[in-house]
């Protein structure tokens, strides 16, 4: 025989164009009847060249471009980016600005999670849930429009603070809206945890156990539903999250039901946080004067977007424009979990398994070219093992790139191997 025989089955392409996907992405599954034997994900249908475009615009202009990376977590990306820039520029933004950024951030989480609940309902054919959650989501969308001037791209951040203040009237408006939303969310928690047909579709589907969640690097609610207590707001507080009391919601269901529960309970946490923010809003200016040119330097900023940890890297060179901007959207961390979760599942569960990570594919697509001369990407002066002698046509394997990355950082004093151990041990 020799070679392994090709597994018998029907190959079905879900995407790049498919009603289950709100954005183009390609999932290819090998089916035996309704059962999934193999699955593969292919990214890259949405590459927009945003990182490169950022290098050709000033910081102020980049802010609005970065905001358009994602239509749902627009504030997350813009805050992550501007935090990195402010760190390089050595700007300390006023406390009131921090609170305002958190307020918009939490409101954004509310609208994103409500959106997810509706999408999850739609993917399992429960359109009634979609209609009701999205109807109630209008409350927070209208609120965001009233506070910032737009329903989606809030444009509230600026270098050195925020652009829009919150008046006393608006504070009351926020509190009223939060009361309405809290009552509605309680109802949806009831629906999600009691409706038989919904539980049948969510429970035990898309299993991801605790160890796999850590090893595959899941982030956000996807990880927290596998009882990985990982939340940037707690682990590495940015803005003023260290001043706000809140719980990191986790669940040990390890399935989509758990992810739904985590998101619903996070909504309740967010309502309390919003109330705290409104009650403890410090007085003072909302922005400090910021220079147009940012001194040379680099910074990484982490932000807990509704979908998980969002990482932005900015390198400045002293001019008005950044030299390099790198965005790691949470979906990129979660998308490799999807293939794992699809294994031995049913075709019928594919849409909801994909939707359960709350994917945002257009945020995710970046380009990495690993081809041609290895010297071109040989940043640290060491050649790739096994590549040095292969001439200019050599390509690095993923394992080589990974080892290279670990080596590169070890020489700079960061030991990822040890860091991984501590996460595995202390993560729970």
């Amino acid at each position: 025989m020799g070679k392994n025989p090709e597994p018998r089955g029907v190959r079905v392409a879900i995407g790049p164009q498919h009603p289950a996907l709100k954005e183009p992405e390609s999932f290819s599954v090998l089916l035996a009847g309704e059962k999934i034997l193999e699955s593969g994900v292919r990214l890259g249908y949405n590459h927009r060249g945003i990182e490169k475009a950022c290098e050709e615009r000033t910081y102020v202009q980049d802010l609005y471009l970065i905001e358009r990376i994602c239509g749902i977590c627009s504030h997350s990306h813009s805050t992550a980016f501007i935090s990195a820039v402010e760190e390089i520029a050595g700007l300390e933004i006023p406390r009131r600005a921090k609170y305002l950024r958190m307020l918009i951030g939490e409101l954004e989480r509310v609208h994103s999670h409500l959106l997810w609940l509706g999408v999850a309902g739609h993917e399992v054919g429960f359109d009634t849930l979609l209609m009701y959650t999205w109807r109630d989501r209008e409350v927070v969308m209208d609120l965001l429009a009233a506070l910032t001037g737009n329903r989606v791209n809030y444009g509230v951040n600026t270098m050195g603070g925020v652009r829009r203040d919150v008046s006393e009237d608006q504070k009351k408006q926020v509190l009223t809206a939060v009361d309405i939303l809290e009552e509605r969310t309680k109802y949806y928690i009831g629906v999600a945890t009691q409706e038989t047909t919904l539980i049948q579709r969510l429970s035990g589907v898309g299993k991801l156990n605790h160890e796999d969640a850590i090893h595959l690097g899941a982030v956000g609610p996807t990880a927290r539903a596998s009882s990985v207590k990982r939340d940037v707001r707690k682990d590495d507080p940015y803005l003023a999250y260290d001043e706000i009391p809140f719980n990191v919601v986790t669940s040990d269901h390890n399935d989509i039901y758990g992810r739904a529960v985590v998101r619903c309970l996070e909504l309740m946490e967010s309502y309390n946080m919003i109330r705290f923010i409104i009650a403890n809003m410090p007085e003072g200016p909302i922005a400090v004067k910021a220079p147009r040119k940012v001194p040379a330097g680099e910074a990484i900023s982490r932000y807990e977007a509704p979908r998980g940890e969002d990482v932005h890297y900015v390198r400045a060179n002293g001019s008005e424009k950044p030299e390099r901007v790198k965005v790691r959207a949470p979906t990129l961390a979660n998308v490799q979990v999807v293939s794992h979760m699809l294994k031995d599942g049913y075709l019928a569960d594919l849409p909801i398994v994909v939707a359960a990570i709350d994917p945002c594919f257009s945020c995710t697509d970046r380009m990495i070219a690993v081809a041609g001369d290895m010297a071109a990407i040989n940043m640290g002066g060491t050649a790739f093992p096994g590549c040095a002698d292969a001439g200019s046509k050599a390509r690095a394997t993923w394992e080589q790139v990974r080892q290279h990355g670990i080596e590169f950082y070890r020489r700079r004093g960061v030991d990822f191997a040890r860091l991984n151990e501590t996460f595995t041990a202390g993560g729970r």
Partner: protein
Amino acid sequence: MKRPGRMFHEVMRSMFRKAATVRYPFVKVQMPARFRGRLKFDASKCIGCKLCMKDCPSGAITIQKVGDKRFEAVFDFARCMYCAQCVDTCPKKALEATGEFELAQLDRGKLIVTFKNDCPVAAAAAAPAGTATATATAPEPKSDAHE
């Protein structure tokens, strides 16, 4: 505790409630006061510093000098992303974001609007669309080359 048909009460109640749907084109929607819609330009306040042009993320604004201390603005609303950064940037408050949001047009030329002495004139009406586009985009590479 599982209950099939958990949403029964809610669903039945909806039958007797007003639909949440807004009959949009027939019922006009009021935007909130802070809404960042179509921009308005007050030519009498403009000092020609061109900071708005510099900050505009999508290159939608062109400020032209038409006489001694007299300026006019050409806005390309097809390019504008309605961030209203120009409104914040303007030191003389010559720009203002309005609540107008119904901007869809079949003719791109109608989205290029020249503001002269406070009264907006659609470029397509004032001049052929092609020339208006040319004046709107031509100064860009020049200003880049200067820097």
